[in-house]
């Protein structure tokens, strides 16, 4: 009887250890409230498809050091003519560590005259921002910028 209970205890510990290992794996890999670089890559793939994304042409203006992540001014401009034959069709902005990788999609046309948009964004952490421009010839151009955030958006606030 003593031996029996000992075995049970050992089995129990073994099971518990196994469960702990199983439990630990998802905790490390899921990180539910934060987009991962893989999610960023997937979000970019959803927009560009199989096309090659080249670096250049796009300018991303964000402050390098941000005190309040709740409202961060951002300007994206593309140095490309805006003619009927050669223009910027859309600008897509992504982030690395917010809960969602998308920030915004902006659709322009030759009528815009200048490929430039501004808005204010939220950043949940110090991270990389990526802007991608889709040109009328089908090519994609990108730029990235790193931002350091001292007060993050949407983490420590409770209503």
């Amino acid at each position, binding site marked *: 009887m003593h031996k029996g209970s000992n075995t049970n205890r050992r089995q129990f510990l073994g099971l518990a250890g196994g469960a702990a290992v199983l439990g630990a794996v998802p905790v490390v890999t899921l990180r539910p409230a934060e987009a991962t670089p893989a999610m960023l890559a997937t979000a970019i793939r959803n927009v560009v498809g199989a096309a090659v994304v080249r670096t250049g042409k796009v300018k991303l203006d964000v402050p390098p050091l941000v005190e309040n992540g709740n409202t961060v001014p951002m300007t994206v401009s593309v140095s490309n003519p805006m003619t009927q034959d050669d223009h910027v069709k859309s600008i897509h902005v992504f982030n690395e560590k917010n*809960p*969602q990788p998308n920030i915004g999609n*902006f659709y322009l046309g030759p*009528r*815009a005259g200048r490929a430039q948009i*501004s808005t*204010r964004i939220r950043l949940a952490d110090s991270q990389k921002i990526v802007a991608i421009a889709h040109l009328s010839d089908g090519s994609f151009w990108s730029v990235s910028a790193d931002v350091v955030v001292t007060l993050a958006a949407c983490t420590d606030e*409770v209503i």
Partner: protein
Amino acid sequence: MASALINVPKVAKRGEIIEIKTLMSHIMETGYRRTAEGEIVPRDIITSFTCRFNGAEIFRADLFPAIAANPFITFFTIATDSGKFEFEWIGDKGFAETASASISVE
């Protein structure tokens, strides 16, 4: 309750590139915040912004929770003719607002 601020030049020369600034008051609740009781506050954001000039779409944006509260969006367009810019914001919980601004082109 919702109110829009639009900044469009009243007068422009034909062919001039003009800047349009828009601001819509909206909480842009992300859906990731929690109350003190630990319940998630449901998402309530503007998902789409469109600008039309004399009925034709000239600019459109898809917005996500990463856009700050009271979405402020600026963009450019060429002043081609006198006419009317119409702005439309559409969002969660049936949010729909419109605004307009006129321009005279010389």
